[in-house]
């Protein structure tokens, strides 16, 4: 099998621990994994945001200004920029009263990808289609 699919499920809120940031950075590293693999071997991550994890995506985070650290938002934008599929649970957005326009996008960086707000059932499908699951 040449392609391995991984589901990166980010379920914790931002800035409580570094877990959600590390979820993004680990997913982004798929870009350079070919260095350690044979030709034709691929790792394909999908990032899924569920539960309090959706709170990581609120835009205009001022973490650098206030605490001198890269915001989780930046990591989310970088993930779009490297063409990762990012699925956001619709039910959890509604539960927290978050409209789509409150969430980050990476248009300003020239990213083609956008966040995909989907029912939980589609995230469940990603979990089923993936070879391995990584819950952050």
């Amino acid at each position, binding site marked *: 099998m040449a392609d391995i699919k991984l589901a990166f499920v980010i379920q914790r809120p931002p*800035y409580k621990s570094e877990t959600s940031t590390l979820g993004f950075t680990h997913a982004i590293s798929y870009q350079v994994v070919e260095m350690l693999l044979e030709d034709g071997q691929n790792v394909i991550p999908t990032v899924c945001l569920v539960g309090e994890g959706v709170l990581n995506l609120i835009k205009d*985070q001022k973490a650098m200004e206030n605490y001198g650290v890269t915001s989780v938002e930046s990591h989310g934008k970088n993930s779009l920029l490297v063409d990762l599929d990012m699925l956001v649970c619709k039910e959890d957005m509604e539960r927290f009263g978050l409209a789509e326009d409150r969430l980050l996008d990476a248009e300003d960086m020239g990213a083609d990808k956008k966040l995909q707000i989907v029912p939980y059932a589609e995230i469940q499908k990603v979990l089923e289609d993936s070879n391995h699951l990584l819950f952050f």
Partner: protein
Amino acid sequence: MKLGVFVNDYKSTVETVERLTAEKLGLIFIQNGVFHAALKENGKPSPLLDKTGNLYALSEDLATRGLTAADVDSRVKVVTYSDVVDLIFNDYEKLAWL
């Protein structure tokens, strides 16, 4: 007692706070605790906001999470680090971090 409670998390803190009583109780929302001040889960404000009239949220921690004063429930006062120091010394005798 005059008790100032620092609520630093969103989900895990409700139970303990619900139980505490004090003649004067203040809730200071910091870190992910600021989501209590700004989110309406299933359309309802956090139950913690009914607990007392003395509610504060740290502006830097709101901004860090992409939240603004416009998101904050009108009962909650947005404060700075300097305000927090004054609350500690002037308004509350005992402090708790939950």
